[in-house]
């Protein structure tokens, strides 16, 4: 199996009247990954997704889907659940799914089989003849999700998939996402909710003001931004004098956050403390949360842009 990414963007640029929405973005989504696309509101995520889903076209740059330059046949391999989504209120659920499935190039029989499969799976077999408007918001979201994946897309793009969902339905959809991931579907997950990304995604890209400002595996990124801080839970008292390259950031009754400076080793510190008779109960490295990285990076990039435009 060739190992090219499911999606590759090269120097993609898109400008509207006065605004550059996507500014020379280059990125790769590995095949089979759950890929988080993060960024503040208005960062250009939706513009980027619209280019990938062929709703709009890039002014310049290249887009490759599964190694091929993006073409008009590709929407059939992509499942897209927009943030702004809806269904025809007056249509019957079954007819609606049939319609959307067939528009994705499936035959009538294929679509029907897929719908039945999903209906059984989600235990909603009696919904076929219900009108969309008779369903609750959460139920409609389920239908929307089925509609997005009914043609078994190679690439699934979910724009804020959990907005407006209650916790039960959120978990249900989350489970389905994991299952599709198991089956090998590549998933792009666009959101500004960091805790969801941290939970779900393996890879991320951070978009700010139309630019790719950070991209990579979640673990690697968190390591990259780690500040060598450790949390120590202990019994007894910490010694007054710590090694020269160690600072105490915070301490309160049996728990402390320690900063190791350049050249200090965690093992050395641990040995030092044990030698001083401190009983260690837990010793963890504190990695920055994506949220912290996100905020820091966005601020940094905004400052950079402001400085650049100031010249």
């Amino acid at each position, binding site marked *: 199996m060739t190992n090219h990414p499911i999606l590759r963007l090269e120097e993609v640029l898109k400008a509207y009247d006065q605004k550059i929405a996507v500014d020379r973005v280059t990125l790769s989504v590995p095949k089979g990954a759950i890929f988080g696309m993060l960024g503040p509101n208005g960062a250009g995520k939706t513009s980027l997704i619209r280019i990938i*889903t062929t709703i709009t076209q890039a002014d310049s740059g290249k887009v490759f889907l599964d190694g091929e330059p993006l073409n*008009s046949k590709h929407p059939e391999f992509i499942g897209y659940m927009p943030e702004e989504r809806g269904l*025809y209120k007056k249509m019957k659920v079954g007819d609606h799914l049939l319609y959307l499935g067939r*528009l994705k190039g499936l035959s009538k029989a294929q679509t029907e089989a897929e719908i039945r499969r999903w209906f059984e799976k989600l235990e909603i077999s009696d919904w076929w003849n219900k009108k969309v408007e008779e369903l609750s918001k959460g139920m409609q979201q389920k239908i929307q999700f089925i509609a997005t994946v009914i043609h078994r897309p190679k690439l699934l793009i979910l724009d804020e998939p959990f907005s407006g969902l209650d916790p039960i339905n959120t978990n249900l959809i989350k489970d389905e996402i994991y299952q599709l991931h198991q089956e090998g579907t590549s998933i792009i997950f666009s959101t500004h909710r960091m805790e969801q990304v941290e939970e779900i995604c393996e890879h991320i890209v951070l978009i700010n003001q139309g630019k790719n400002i950070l991209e990579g595996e979640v673990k690697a990124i968190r390591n990259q931004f780690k500040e060598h801080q450790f949390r120590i839970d202990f019994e007894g008292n910490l010694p007054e004098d710590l090694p020269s390259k160690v600072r105490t950031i915070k301490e309160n009754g049996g728990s402390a956050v320690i900063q190791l400076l350049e050249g200090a080793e965690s093992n050395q510190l641990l040995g030092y403390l044990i030698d001083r008779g401190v009983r260690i109960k837990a010793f963890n490295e504190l990695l920055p949360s994506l949220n912290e990285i996100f905020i820091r990076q966005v601020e940094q990039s905004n400052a950079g842009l402001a400085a650049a435009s100031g010249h």
Partner: protein
Amino acid sequence: MNKLWLIIQREYLTRVTRKSFILATLLTPFAFALFFVVVAVIFGYESDDSRKVAVIDKSAILQGALKDEKNLFFKFVDYDLDFLRKHLDSLQYDAILEVPPMDDVLANKYTLYYYAEDAPTLDIELMIKDRIRDAVREYKIRELNLERKQLEALETRVELDPEPLQEGGADSSTITSAIGAGIGMIMGFIMYIVVFVYGAMVMRSVMEEKTTRIVEVMISSVRPFHLMLGKIIGVGAVGLTQVAVWAILIPSLMFIVQVVFGIDTAQFSAMEPGAEIDPDDMEQMMALGLREIQNINWWLIFPLFVIYFLGGYFMYSSFFAAVGASMSDDLGEGQSLTLPIVIPVILALYIMMAAVQAPNSSLAVWSSIFPLFSPIVMPARLAFNPPAWEILVSVVLLIATSVSFVWLSGRIYRVGILMYGKKVTLKEFGKWMFRKM
């Protein structure tokens, strides 16, 4: 193409299977028929008070002959007027009609006297006047010793038959013009209604897709242009279905109503005073009319009707689609955007009415070539045999305009449907047309 077909199917089927559509389509002809019946009953309603009228005709002008009506009975009596007036009730009469002697046979005014509690109702008055006029005519013919045949010869029916200048050119008659004008008017009105009803339906539906946010889901599967075109075609087919059902149901229901209720349509025209047509004339005109209907070149006119209908529909409704796509959630603000299409359509309707009167005036000629007017104006002129080049230029212009309207609207549409919460002006329409996606 396959996807376009799916869209057309959905747009069509969801509408024609809707209860409101089925009801409107079926009930409207019934409402027509009901209206027809009610009107017939009202017109056919006869006064139920019967009257006995005593007629005093001392000089025998009427010769004792005055035909009874359903509820109006005449009885010639020999009593004195004074005696009758006193004993009207006991003699069981309702009214007295005094026919005075005629002093001057050549006078063209003649007054009778009607004695009753109340003044005669309009229909009784008309009926009496009618009867007396005929009787007096007979009386005068007798008194003056006139020859009946000569009298009849005095009345001449004049006709003007237009003939072609070239020999062997198409012969036509004034009836052709009348029929042509009638068909053209009907065509123009249908066009006008279709534009507003179904054009507005396209607009509402586009707007609904936008406000319910289904549109972004859709255009990740199909091209926006196909979505718009599919909707226009689907709604157009709905319109054709409705018009076709009406075209069959309304005349057949009318026919059934006539048969079942025994309502005579001629009754309506007979009610209008002075609209009496000699049955012979009527028959002649019917025959002539039928012949003229056959004479009209249907093989040319019918396809042209269809072309103008489709051209007009696509042109106007695509614009409505573009407006629908540009509107935000507020229906009201679209009204001003529809003006560029509403004004030409209304103007075209008035021009059409003028064109029927003077089909070769320069107003009619130029408006039937100008594509925004031609779908409504040209059909009204077709029966008057306009020159071929005019038809050709008009059709070519119309097709070119509709195609470019659909195309340009498609460009406005694809920008508009993704634009939220922004009030759009006509100026922006222009910008969007030439924006790349």
